[in-house]
Structure formats: structure tokens, C-alpha cells
């Protein structure tokens, strides 16, 4: 019997989820500012973070790729305030650095049972005293355009130079300590990751070989939030240079010296250049710290993830179904146009599958790329996929 509607049974409907990924490379030439003479780097009057674009940000073609900031914990803030009073330190943007830390920490790590903001904890174990607590951190907030639904686990790699001053790095002396590189990665995340208020997170190590030992972690990556938190200690392990093991060069030359040393930190350019990351994050601005990091950035790669949810409807057509069409062109002069004589089998050509609600309201149409012949000798199953 000819019929138009056919009910989809439980076995005819299945929901699936497909993960689409994008490989995202962020090369050092974009990040350091050398490609577009820093026109892709956006700073703000508040000075609490700086934004990096993949093209001069005044262009409509530019995409925001990440923000970089630095922050430290309340305990560091208090110690620096005490030192400032005693005249033994000249902290700069001390309060803003504390605010940045607290803002990231309360969103990403949440609060403990006393209502205090949790520390970032590099070993992933939250309630073990001060072990693994990260108090001085760089923050990378990748844009949603790049992260999409989340960063794919065990895909994050960041190659950088842990040591050397900016000008020596830019000079590119072969074999110099400045040419030493390290590659950060979430190497262990394929086997182990943790849960925070902002979703899954995992530990970041400077080498794959260290990933068995959580105490060697130098940071955290929050996959759904698209945020990477790195301890400033990642810059402390570099080899000795002519200017000192911890040299960070935050007021060295980045293109031109005048624009690089944006904050007078009370030290001469060379002296400041020779000082390590510790001096920079105390006496320099947040932008100084970001500049020092960016100029040590060689390459960063990660894969993002986009969840594609689909429902697949199997429209099953038995041999005795859908062999007749209600199309007006199917009949001419009270005869089926597809039959030349009375004994011919009825034939239809299927062009569209309609999905209807229980009240027979048409909800969706699926078109086939070319009409499919259907007669009583054939059975078909049309696979209709609805993505959402």
C-alpha cells in the first residue's frame, strides 16, 4: 500500500558526537613583535595585560590570539610591601599583580573550605601544604577563536628560551647559552588530568621525560578555559650567561631600546638587562614581564576541539513502499507517466526525505544529490544526518 509517512523507531535514530580539530601554530615572529614592528601588540592604559594579534590590530583582518599577563600571590604582595617599607625593594604594580593572580585563581582554582582563594598548584595536589604552590605566574589566555570548545589534551607545546638576554637572543649567536631551548608541554595529560571549577586541567612540564614526576611541573593548562598558567621558575633554570644565569633582559632592546624599556625601574639599562626574571617581576611592569616572555617565545602549537553533535536517522524503505508519487507530474491523462504498459512496475525517483513532528509538521528536509530510482524490486536505507 502506498504510504507517505513512516514512523521512525528507536533503532532508526542514533546520536553521535564527532570531534573536529584545528592545528594552531603561533610562531615566535608573531609573538615577539618583530614581524609587524609590534603593531600587532596591543597594550592598555591599565597595564594589567597585553594582547597579541596575528596582524596589526587596527586592521579588520586581525584576529586576537591571546592575552599575556603576570600576577603573584597575596603572600608575595605582602612580602614586597614590607620590603618596600624597609627600603629593600622597589615593587612596581604590586597591587595589580596581586589582583591579576587572584582574578585568575578564583575563576580557575576556586576557593578552599575557609573561603580563601586557592593557590595554583603545579603538582595538581591541592591540600598538601605549600608543596607545589605557584605564587608568581605568567598567564596566557588564548582567544576563543583559537581554542573553540577546548584545547585538545596532550597537544600543547611551547618552545622557548629559558635563559639569555633579549638582545643576545636576537643576535642569535650560535652555540651561546641563549640558543638553549626548552619545550613546555602537557605531556602527561593523555593519562592523567584534574578537575577545577573551570573544567579539566593538566600539568605542564619542560620535557616529556619529566612528566612522570609531578614535582617537576612548571605550570598548568586549563583546557576548556583556554588558559595556561606558568610559574616564573620556568625561566630560572637556564644556563649561565655572560650576564648571569637568571638574566631576563626585560629592558633590553626590542626593536629599539626606547620603546622596550617602558618603565623606569630605577636601574640602568644594562644593569636591568642583566637582572633575572625575579627582578623583572618585582620591579618591572606587567608589560615588561610579558615582553620578556614574548621575546623568548620560539613556537607554540596546540590543537583545538570542536564538538559536532549529530543525530542520524535511518529512513528505511521496504520493497513495497514509496513506489508511488503524489507529484502532479506523476500522472498524465489518468496514467502513470513512468509506465508504458499496464504490466510495467511502478517507479518513483526519490529526491527528498522529510522529517516530520508527531503532529505531521514538516521540520526538516534532506535532499539527495541525484534522484534515486525506487521500484518494488528494490529496498533502500537513506541515512539522514542532522548536525547541530
Amino acid at each position, binding site marked *: 500500500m502506498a504510504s507517505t509517512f513512516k514512523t521512525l523507531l528507536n533503532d532508526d535514530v542514533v546520536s*553521535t558526537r564527532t*570531534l573536529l580539530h584545528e592545528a*594552531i*601554530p603561533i610562531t615566535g615572529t608573531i609573538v615577539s613583535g618583530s614581524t609587524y614592528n609590534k603593531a600587532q601588540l596591543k597594550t592598555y592604559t591599565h597595564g594589567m595585560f597585553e594582547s597579541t594579534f*596575528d596582524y596589526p590590530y587596527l*586592521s579588520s583582518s586581525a584576529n586576537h590570539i591571546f592575552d599575556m599577563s603576570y600576577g603573584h600571590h597575596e603572600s608575595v604582595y605582602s612580602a614586597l610591601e614590607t620590603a618596600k617599607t624597609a627600603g629593600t625593594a622597589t615593587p612596581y604594580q604590586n597591587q595589580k599583580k596581586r589582583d591579576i593572580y587572584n582574578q585568575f585563581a578564583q575563576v580557575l582554582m576556586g576557593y578552599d573550605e575557609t573561603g580563601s582563594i586557592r593557590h595554583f598548584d603545579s603538582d595538581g595536589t591541592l591540600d598538601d601544604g605549600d608543596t607545589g604552590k605557584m605564587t608568581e605566574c605568567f598567564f596566557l589566555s588564548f582567544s576563543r577563536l583559537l581554542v573553540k570548545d577546548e584545547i585538545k589534551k596532550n597537544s600543547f607545546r611551547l618552545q622557548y628560551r629559558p635563559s639569555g638576554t633579549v638582545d643576545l637572543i636576537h643576535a642569535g649567536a650560535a652555540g651561546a647559552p641563549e640558543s638553549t631551548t626548552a619545550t613546555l608541554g602537557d605531556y602527561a595529560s593523555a593519562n592523567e588530568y584534574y578537575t577545577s571549577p573551570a573544567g579539566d586541567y593538566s600539568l605542564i612540564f619542560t620535557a616529556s621525560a619529566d612528566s612522570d614526576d609531578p614535582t617537576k611541573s612548571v605550570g598548568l593548562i586549563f583546557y576548556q578555559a583556554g588558559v595556561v598558567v606558568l610559574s616564573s621558575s620556568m625561566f630560572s633554570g637556564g644556563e649561565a650567561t655572560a650576564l648571569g644565569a637568571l638574566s631576563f633582559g626585560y629592558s633590553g632592546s626590542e626593536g629599539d631600546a626606547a620603546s622596550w624599556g617602558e618603565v623606569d625601574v630605577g636601574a640602568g639599562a644594562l644593569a636591568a638587562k642583566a637582572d633575572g626574571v625575579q627582578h623583572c617581576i618585582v620591579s618591572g611592569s606587567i608589560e615588561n614581564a610579558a615582553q620578556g616572555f614574548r621575546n623568548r617565545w620560539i613556537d607554540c602549537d596546540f590543537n583545538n576541539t570542536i564538538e*559536532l553533535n549529530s543525530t542520524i536517522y535511518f529512513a528505511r524503505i521496504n520493497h513495497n513502499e514509496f513506489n508511488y508519487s503524489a507529484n502532479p507530474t506523476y500522472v498524465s491523462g489518468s496514467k502513470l507517466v513512468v509506465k508504458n504498459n499496464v504490466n510495467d512496475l511502478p517507479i518513483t525517483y526519490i529526491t527528498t526525505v522529510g522529517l516530520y513532528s508527531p503532529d505531521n509538521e514538516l521540520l526538516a528536509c534532506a535532499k539527495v544529490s541525484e534522484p534515486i530510482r525506487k521500484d518494488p524490486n528494490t529496498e533502500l536505507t537513506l541515512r539522514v544526518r542532522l548536525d547541530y
Partner: protein
Amino acid sequence: MSLKPQYGNFFQFEENDVLVNRIEAHPKVEFFIHKNNAYYNNENNSASNSNVPNGHLSLYDYNVNRDPDPANGQLIYPFVTKIGAGTSFGTVTTSNYIFDFDVGDQITGSYPMTASISVDRLGRQQDWSTLTASSDGKKRYYLPALKNHLDFYTKLSPHYEYSSSEHGDLNDKYVNLISIPSIFYGSEIKKGTVTLKYFVSGTLVGEASDINKNGELIHTTGSEGSVTTGSVVGVVLYNEGFVLLKSSDSIATHTERYDGPTDGVEPNETNASWFNFGATGSTAGAPSSSFAIHLTGTSYIDTLTMFAHAGENKLNFSNNPTYLTSAAKQVVTGTDHYVEGADIAIKNIVSSSYAEHSASFEPTTYITKVGIYDQDKNLIAIASLAKPMRKREKDSYTFKLKLDI
């Protein structure tokens, strides 16, 4: 009106507090074609993004100016791991998907995805039959695929009709099909805005416009050739973004090679005609001819406008901890109780006009945000003010919130 203060944070929008407006925008679009190159709105796209050819728009603007060599690994690209769901990219055919990839293999795509106009000088049906099933061969399907759409618009003009005794059969005409992706014009091309201009050595020799706003492209300028002004040379499918030019008669005495070589033999020169409009296939690129397409699109932006009222005697208390004096934190807690002090003092932030003198207390708040909640009191949107707005009991404000939807 009661002067009694009313406390509470949630207020329901009334019927007249929520409006939906629709803004109709008309973006101008211009393509200029010369020597096998197209330019969009007179911009040099490839200068700002080497990975996007001129005349193209890039979706998402990915890979701006990145090294195009995949070997250098600077390009963003998508990939999907083959599983049983059959998800892949449009560039992978079904047979490729089945036979070229195993389950677990990565199927990769490429960025940027760009769009531009295409000019397909289809010729006549008898020419299509000689085409093989190559990419060129698929052009024979282009016109039949538009048949229903063309016939549907015969209510606008009989010139749309695919086959008629009055205007002939499209299959027998030299048809030039210009396809315009909707990313350029939005929802539809605005009627009466389509103009095609044909230049020879910089001089306008022919112009066709839909001056009657009924889809007919009427030859309005140029009397040098055999096409007379006022004659219909094509039609426009406004909703679908197609322009069909159906005239191969000359519009100027100028002749040039508009086609590429066949079997290595260069073709004869032909007259400037609407069939040759936008030709980009010749070896030399028809250097004397240039073409311009002007149109205006139509796009709609729906905007939700909400009026949030902060009336008199309302919203004069804050739950912010800083709203209270520190002495108010007289909390007694135990294993089974949490008791706040009975006398909670609110900070008096009223500024006095006199030195060494405190002004009289007056409930004052500073409104910084307006939250929009759903019926289950889930916060679904926040509007932040540019600067905090002082709210006293006697003040009454209305905040206008706009949301593009």
C-alpha cells in the same frame, strides 16, 4: 506613590519593556575584473593577506599573511579523525573517505576558506555535450539546476522563463552565468541596484541595469554594436545571487581574444558582447577589456531592546560586603548556627558640603551592572555601565539594553 523603600533585586520586564527591532542594512558591493583578476570593492586583498587572492573574502580571516608553505607548519588547518559517523570535509569524496582512509586516520582540510564571484561563460547546450565529466563538464548541469528558479520568477518578467516561444530556449543561447556568493550581499540583492559596465581601453562601451526592478537587465548605454538600448540582455536572480546574461550580440566594434587556446590553437577574436563580459580565460587576459559589477545587498540585523527600570525607592540596598561598615561583621558561628549582628550599620557615603561634618545618612547605591535572568533565575546576560550610576531613593532611571540577535 508610596515612599516606603522597596527591596529586591529581581524585576520582571513588562510587555512594553522588551522590543525586537530589525535593522535593514544595504552593503555596497563592487567587483572589477581586468586581465584575469577580480577586485572586490577596489581593495587589494592579497596585499594585506597573502593567503587570500584579490576579489576574495576570507571566512574567519584565518592564516593572515602566514607562510603558505605547509612544510613550514605556520598554517592553521582543520582535521578530523575518521570514526564511524562518516564526518569528513566537503573536499573528500565518499569513495575517498571509504577507500583512502582507515578508521583512526586523520583527514585534513585547509584554511583559509575564501569566496568570490565566478563567471561561467556556458555557451550553448550543443557546446555542453562536447564537455567531458571534468570540472568543466559539470557546467552542463548549471543551467538545468536553475530551471525551476527561473520559471518561478516569470511572475516578475517573462524573460525569466527557461524556454518560451517569445524569448527562446536558454539551451540554444550563449549564456554567461555570474555567481555571487551570499557572503557578499547578505539575504538578497536589492532590486534595482545591479549594474554591469563593460569598458574597452577604459571607455564605457556598454552598461546594463535592472532599472525596472523586475530582474530584467536592460542594455542602457552603448549603441556602437548591434545591441540596442532598451533591450533585455539578461536576468538577475536576487535571492539566489545569480546574474544570467543571454545576449551574444556585439555591443561594440572592438574585437579581442576572450577565450583560451583549444588544443594549442588560439581562437579567433570576437566582438565585445555581454557573453564575453567578465571573460578571464584567454592567454593574454583580454587586456583591452575590463568589467565592473555594482550591486547592493540586503542584510538584516535583529536587535533585542530591553528597558530596565530602576524606579524611586527601589534598588537602594546592595549585597556587596563593602556596603556595610566593618563593624557590621558581628557574626557568631557555630556547628549549627550562623548569626549576624542585629545592628548592621550601612556605610554613609553621602558627601557633606562642610568640612569636619558628616552629612545625614541617605541610602545610596552605585549601579554598575544590570543582569538579565531567565524565568529560573539563571543569569544569562550582563550589561555593564561605562561608569557607576549613583542611585538615591528619590532617583529614577531607565537603562536601555540592546542585544544583537
